[in-house]
């Protein structure tokens, strides 16, 4: 069996970047006490918006900006419904996914079949030409580095800044945070928009870098895997990255095994990322490492300020 470990690791990083972006965004949302199940819908909206704008303008940068805007715009619906109209977060998140899937294929109707402009890869003379490390670390698109930077930034903000403290307070106990004078609703809306933008970027990474093409429903459950990732990470940014690279590794490996024509049915291999995600969820939710213990206490609860 010929699987080159260097290209496998490089492919792993590419495969994990979409769920890493979406996962780190959702982590912030959940840290603020909001459960947004619409990640899949926001990702697919990002995928189509990014693709459409990149094709129109020929600029990948504008494409990614549009993707972030598209994801955030969709999440704004969720924000208004859950924060002002106090709707059930589970149902609203589902609606977001259903609506996003429909709207994205509507937008994408006219542009499927076009090719997006190539996204430039980092090319540092010397570093990128290094054997082994060059292709693994120094030959990716800028989005890969941005995603890693985002994880570090989220970790630093949550852990070491006042804003991070407010976000966590709102997520742990919204009534106490409200009593202290923090604007619970505003903090949450900002977190939801951030999550939407991140999911949008993750989706655009699919349609502009990884595939790169637009097909209906192309995110194929990545949004749900990103949601599982946050549970797996027990709401810790560093672990989101670890988890994303693990899942990415499985995806990249199973695609390579399919290509290598190994004696396992293709469908079984294609199932593996989902099955392994479920297994990981089971492991995390059982036993001593009860991830739920680390969940933000107000996660998914409706906040209604009285008085």
């Amino acid at each position, binding site marked *: 069996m010929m699987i080159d470990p260097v290209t496998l690791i490089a492919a792993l990083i590419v495969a994990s970047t979409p769920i890493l972006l979406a996962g780190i965004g959702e982590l912030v949302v959940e840290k603020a006490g909001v459960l947004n199940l619409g990640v899949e819908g926001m990702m697919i909206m990002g995928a189509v918006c990014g693709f459409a704008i990149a094709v129109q303008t020929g600029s990948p940068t504008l494409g990614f900006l549009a993707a972030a805007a598209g994801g955030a715009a969709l999440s704004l619906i969720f924000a208004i419904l859950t924060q002002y109209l106090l709707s059930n977060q589970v149902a609203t998140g589902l*609606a977001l996914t259903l609506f*996003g899937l429909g709207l994205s*294929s509507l937008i994408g109707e006219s542009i499927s079949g076009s090719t997006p402009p190539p996204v430039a890869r980092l090319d540092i003379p010397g570093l990128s030409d290094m054997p082994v490390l060059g292709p693994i670390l120094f030959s990716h698109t800028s989005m890969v580095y941005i995603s890693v930077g985002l994880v570090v930034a989220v970790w630093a903000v949550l852990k070491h800044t006042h804003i991070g403290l407010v976000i966590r307070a709102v997520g742990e106990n919204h009534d106490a945070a409200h009593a202290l004078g923090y604007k619970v609703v505003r903090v949450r809306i900002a977190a939801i928009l951030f999550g939407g933008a991140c999911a949008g970027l993750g989706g655009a990474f699919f349609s502009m870098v990884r595939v790169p093409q637009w097909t209906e429903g192309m995110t194929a459950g990545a949004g749900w*895997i990103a*949601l599982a990732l946050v549970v797996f990470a027990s709401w810790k940014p560093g672990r989101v990255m670890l988890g994303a690279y693990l899942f990415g590794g499985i995806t990249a490996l199973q695609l390579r095994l399919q290509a290598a024509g190994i004696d396992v049915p293709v*469908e079984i291999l294609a199932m593996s990322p989902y099955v392994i995600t*479920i297994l990981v*969820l*089971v492991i995390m*939710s059982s036993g001593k490492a009860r991830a739920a213990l680390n969940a933000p206490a107000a996660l998914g609860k409706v906040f209604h300020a009285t008085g």
Partner: protein
Amino acid sequence: MFKLEKRPSPSKPWILATPILAVVMTMLAGGLMFAVLGKNPFEAIRIIFYDPLFNAQFASYSRPQLLVKAGPLILIAIGLSLGFRAGIWNIGAEGQYIMGAIAGATFGLAFYPTESPLIFPGMVIAGALGGWAWAMIPAILRTVFRTNEILVSLLLVYVAEKFLASAAVGFLRNPEGSGFPGSRQLNRIDAMSNPELFANTGMHWGVVMAFISVIAAYILLNKHLLGYQIKLAGQAPRAAKFAGVNPSRLIILCLGVSGALAGLAGLFEVSGPAGQISIDFNVGYGFTAIIVAFLGRLHPVGILLAGLLMALTYIGGELAQLMLGIPASAIQAFQGMLLFFLLALDVLSNYRIRMKKGEATA
């Protein structure tokens, strides 16, 4: 500024009025969407909601389709509504629908070419068991390991879709189909087909089953202790605990019933309207049924009406595609919009809106 004041109990008139209001607002917003697409919004809305039922040219074809499409939606939504009421979120009905269809078809085709009146009832049982078994995975993981049933049931949809692909090109492929993917045409084999029971009504066994499930759910929720426990667990989990409701039992039961009903819907579909197991025989009924359940206010009679309305948007959507070239995906967005409006308007049933007097502080 406005201020929301929680009602002691949800307002009855608003609970009935909000679905209607949501449909009207969706028509308005949908009309806007169609206008953006460059279509005449009035014509589009008329074609979706009126023509399938009353246009002399199309109604003869469309009217029977109403029951064909509403049947599976109602059947699945009734099952989901029980869980949703108890705060148990099975959102993987699409997967249970697929697995029910595969299990039922496999049972039937195993006896091919035997003709026996027992084969179809056997397929029905196998279909229900297939969906039930698939729903038992999240149920058991939830009760034993406390794994989130939302994520597990949803992720299993993707697993079921891959399994469907392998069935359609593998063990269920028609050996006489010259290598094309897809099983034998179940609806052309007498012993395995789920026929139209009365000509030009669209009524098939799945629709009968859907009506039975509506009645059964109504009785369960209103006359039976279990129905009371389901409602109690959703509204007051702590009180339910003191009242001796066993949460694990409720989870196994709600997921099991919804899985079995979704499996039945899948079996009736592949042996009837869809006709065979093919890679993409599933068209998302399992997801649309979530909208149906909410639109019907999780009430059996409401779900019956909501299922018919949602079926109408499917048929009207196909017609609009044909007549105006409105993309099929527009209907999906339209259905999603409906759920948004419904959830947004729910605030009126649960809260009173009061004007704030003179106070500047929040």
